[in-house]
């Protein structure tokens, strides 16, 4: 895992509050598992039908009937439950999941999210992302600030097909932590060693930055 990903995950772990029900999206967000203190009373939801999963301990034998939505063999913690797919999505649609983390191809200043389809290149299906993005109380995006060609992923308006409109609360990248507000994106934290000018240069969306309030991470 890269230093940038480690920085994103360490910062993202601070979003999780004791007592919450949290869903971790496929890819980088799943790694957050390892950043949550074992003693913290949080139940991790996985949409294939488990509430209260945890990573297997080192050397712990896999249970072949127990996976998370990414297909990794997992285990459960005290207070866990298992259920069918309809119940799992009822939990999501009724907004009983407090917080979810997802990756993004694009995210924009209005909180629109695109993370499932690149027309002509990549369209393997949306899985459960649409319901999670639309209905979970708080959606935090974890992604690199720029794609591998250096193009910004934080845009004025998403260009790819949306996963859900106006669904994002907060964006955490390797360069900044940004909140979606009625006035656009407000920068909460900026990465250590990065200047405000460099951050603006790497971002397509307009950023509201109050330098007196700015945190570092």
């Amino acid at each position, binding site marked *: 895992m890269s230093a940038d990903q480690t920085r994103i995950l360490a910062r993202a772990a601070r979003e999780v509050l004791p007592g919450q029900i949290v869903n971790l999206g496929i890819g980088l967000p799943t790694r957050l598992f390892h950043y949550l203190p074992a003693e913290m009373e949080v139940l991790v939801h996985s949409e294939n039908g488990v509430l209260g999963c945890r990573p297997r301990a080192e050397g712990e034998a896999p249970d072949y009937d127990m996976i998370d939505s990414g297909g990794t063999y*997992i285990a459960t913690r005290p207070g866990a439950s298992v259920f069918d797919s309809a119940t799992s999505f009822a939990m999501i649609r009724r907004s009983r999941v407090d917080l979810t983390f997802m990756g993004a191809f694009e995210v924009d200043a209005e909180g629109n999210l695109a993370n499932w389809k690149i027309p002509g290149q990549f369209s393997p299906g949306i899985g459960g992302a649409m319901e999670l993005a639309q209905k979970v109380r708080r959606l935090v995006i974890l992604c690199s600030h720029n794609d591998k060609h250096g193009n910004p992923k934080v845009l004025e308006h998403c260009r790819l097909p949306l996963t859900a409109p106006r669904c994002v609360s907060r964006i955490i990248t390797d360069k900044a932590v940004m909140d979606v507000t009625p006035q656009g994106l407000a920068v909460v934290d900026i990465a250590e060693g990065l200047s405000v000018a460099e951050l603006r240069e790497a971002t397509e969306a307009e950023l509201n930055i109050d330098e007196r309030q700015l945190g570092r991470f």
Partner: protein
Amino acid sequence: MTLLTHKHRTIEAAIAAIPHGASIMVGGFGSPGTPFALIDELLAQGQHDLTLIKNDANEPGIGIGKLIEAGRVTRLVTSHVGLNRRAIDAMNRGELDVTLVPQGLLAEKIRSAGAGHHAFLTDIGQGTEIAAERREIELDGRVWGIEPALYADFALVHAERADRYGNLIYRATASNFNPLMAMAADTVIAQAYRVDEPGRLAPEAIHTPCAFVSQVVRVDPATAEQGRRAHVG
């Protein structure tokens, strides 16, 4: 519906009831809950032009991946095929007609059919291309999308335990779509590691009551697990 006393079948007899061109719901999310033994028997018997409804396309070389690779599947209704490169390739070459449905909608469309409803109203997908061509209706001052129920001729489901009447118990995350599909299809074929005499399963432990299940097949855990360990993680 099959009489209680006539549900316990051999796997060959159960699958032989499926004709060419059938629509078949297949349980499982990834590997857990996938009825591998029933799928292998379907592969062996040669039914073709099938429409499959499954959360995902399994992985290359296992589960319904085998049926897709053998050219036996005309149409697949699924929430994603991301773990099966060969299914993506078949879709891109136009050999497999894939209908992609968001996972929660897929589950609810199947549950609606199983509950005897013909459609439900939802706001899921509004403002996205998923809802672009969906019929809408206004109710209580809001606009709702109409999502039709999803039916099938057959369902193939996997249970941990069953009894001879067709009562089913699922285990851990092997539940997933199985109990929904077991209510939604006209003919439901269940595989289980154990098929007990009635009375051995506690009534309050039953997940799918036997009224929904047409045929029960006992499968050996060793063969039924084929492919499970191919799963990542």
